[in-house]
């Protein structure tokens, strides 16, 4: 410890070391990891969207979708898209309930509802794919089929993973062990999955 002596101060006053600056965590590890993951996935889907756009523009006028291939269920998928958006809204209600009202049971209910609507979206997609495969639209049938299953299938895989994460959050909230950083990271993933879908719908279905 340094002893300071000066004509203005008593000789026995000791300099107090400055307090270390307070360090606050700006972003949780869970959220940082999720943001990095979403950045990767965003570029993955951007690559698919770009490739699809170029292939679609290369088709002769009137030849997209290719003749002889089944048409995609535009109306049903539009309704299904609303189900997915409703699921996203419920997920954010869960966040509000958890962070503003500190109500874990209410958050758990909203999370379960979000997961159920998300699962309904994937199930309807699966039923439609079964029908399309039966009508001849397969991965190998045409470039159209390849891109359709690749883009929409990749999105469905992400949706399934995010639904599993939502169910995990629901379980944690039910037993009172859910923490805000975990919920924030999972909701960020679900928001990405829900927000990406309308872009894919317009691109692939319309």
């Amino acid at each position, binding site marked *: 410890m340094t002893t300071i002596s000066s004509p203005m101060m008593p000789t026995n006053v000791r300099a107090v070391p400055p307090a270390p600056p307070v360090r606050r965590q*700006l972003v949780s590890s869970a959220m940082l990891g999720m943001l990095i993951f979403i950045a990767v996935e965003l*570029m993955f889907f951007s690559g698919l969207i770009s490739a699809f*756009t170029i292939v679609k*523009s290369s088709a002769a006028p009137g030849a997209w979708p290719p003749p002889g291939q089944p048409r995609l269920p535009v109306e049903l998928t539009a309704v299904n898209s609303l189900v997915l958006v409703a699921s996203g809204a419920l997920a954010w209600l869960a966040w509000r309930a958890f962070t503003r009202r500190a109500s874990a049971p209410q958050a758990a209910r909203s999370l379960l509802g979000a997961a159920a609507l998300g699962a309904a979206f994937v199930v309807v997609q699966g039923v439609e794919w079964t029908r399309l495969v039966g009508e001849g639209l397969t991965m190998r049938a045409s470039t159209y089929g390849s891109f359709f299953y690749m883009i929409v299938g990749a999105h469905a895989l992400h949706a399934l993973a995010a639904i599993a994460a939502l169910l995990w959050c629901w379980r944690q909230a039910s037993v009172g062990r859910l923490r805000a950083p975990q919920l924030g990271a999972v909701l960020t993933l679900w928001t990405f999955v829900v927000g990406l879908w309308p872009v894919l719908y317009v691109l692939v279905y319309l």
Partner: protein
Amino acid sequence: MSARRALWWVVATLVVVWAPAALACSVCFDANAERRAAFLGTTIFLTLTPLAFVFAVVWWLRRRARALDAIPPAE
């Protein structure tokens, strides 16, 4: 205007006026105008998407940092 700045303007003007179109990718050209537009559009899209993501994250972090700064530190 300083000599250095004048030189910079001359060089910039020459580059803009005389530079021919450089096709970085030999297959990114097509006689079909719609396909050329798709190449251009996807190039812009793939360029701006990661930048937009990075800017959005930085903006969000700045907002969070300001919100945290507004909270007085606990004793």
